[in-house]
């Protein structure tokens, strides 16, 4: 999710983060849903971070990125994922009801993808479809992974170890 944001907008730097363990005692359940034991966790379940986008042709200097991530369900009936990219002339908004990951195995549920154009004050619905050959595969994960293989075949950029290591370093800083 954060990787996808950075892939679209560029690297986020000067990150300030604050984390919380809201529920320190995690209940483990078996396949039947019965609680079998309770374990203390050291992993945060609430994360808020802010940072700035690197200088780029498509962003103003010092553009702020702000992320709120809470483990588990949203407020009942509300969206799991809301992302806005706010620009000089308008803004983009992408929402998904059921999931924060639009490239996995879960049905995202209701998705809204719109641009608000300030000049016309109109909302425009945006679509983005997988290619026909990718729709042969059931899950978004399989379609996206197929993209990785084909990009590798065609010598197009793929996510590399260097990028992964950089993301690891960012996460360690965020979780400090």
């Amino acid at each position, binding site marked *: *999710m954060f*990787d996808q*944001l950075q892939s*679209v907008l560029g690297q986020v730097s000067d990150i300030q983060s604050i984390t919380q363990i809201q*529920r320190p005692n*995690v*209940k*483990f*359940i*078996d396949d039947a849903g019965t609680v079998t034991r309770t374990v203390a966790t*050291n*992993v*945060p*379940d609430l994360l808020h971070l802010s940072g700035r*986008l690197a200088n780029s042709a*498509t962003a*103003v200097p010092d*553009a702020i*990125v702000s*992320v709120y*991530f*809470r*483990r*588990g*369900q949203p407020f009942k009936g509300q969206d*799991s*994922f*809301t*992302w*806005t*990219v*706010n*620009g000089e*002339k*308008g803004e*983009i908004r992408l929402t998904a009801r059921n999931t*924060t990951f*639009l*490239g996995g*195995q879960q049905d995202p549920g209701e998705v809204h993808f719109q*641009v608000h154009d300030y000049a016309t004050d109109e909302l425009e619905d945006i679509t983005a*479809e997988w290619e026909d050959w990718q729709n*042969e*595969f*059931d899950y978004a994960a*399989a379609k*996206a*992974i*197929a*993209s990785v293989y084909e*990009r*590798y075949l065609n010598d197009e950029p*793929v*996510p590399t*170890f260097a990028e*992964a*290591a950089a993301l*690891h*370093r960012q996460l*360690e800083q965020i979780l400090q």
Partner: protein
Amino acid sequence: MTITRVAIIGLSANAKTSWAAAGHLPYLLSTRGRQHFKITALLNSSTEAAQKAIEKYLPNETGVKAYGNPDDLAADPEVDLVVTSTRVDTHYDLTLPSIKAGKVPYIEWPLAQDAKHAEELQNALTRQRKSIVGLQGRYVPLFEKIEALVAEGKIGKVLSSELRAFGGTFDRETLTNKLDYFTDKRIGGNPITIGFAHCKSTSISTIGSANNH
């Protein structure tokens, strides 16, 4: 056409479903995928486990070798690309021999249990230095479209961005028994490193314990 020969580490017959099966096999076993890729080996916790996985997932494939040891896989000249889909803290030991042997690694995210191990894997890449990490979420058309809209100037320059997300796991309070490592930062696989950084997956529970691959 050159065929890239693929080994998969962690295609487990034990799990109810397998991320490697759900994510990688659809393309690799498709007509389109077969034009360029062939699965030639599996590495599991034992050759018996690998053999069971071959019988379960690749019953119609020929010439698939079953390995129980990462050094044996690394020594196989008929493997070009090694896909790894196992619990994060096992990535390093399972993949290092193949990486040193010059095979191209495709490792699911998180790359390793911490930045130090991730950097060591990066440094182990041989001269040709190709590598792949499973951050495939980048190629979801919705995200590519946002990038395109920004690039074409649809909203002018980006002033700021906000992301508000609820996820990482299904429930705020519980975890399935299979994900016991989600409560220990040292293992490196948890709702933040997986869910926040990359994705939530319904099949994460199937990546399972360190020994069950």
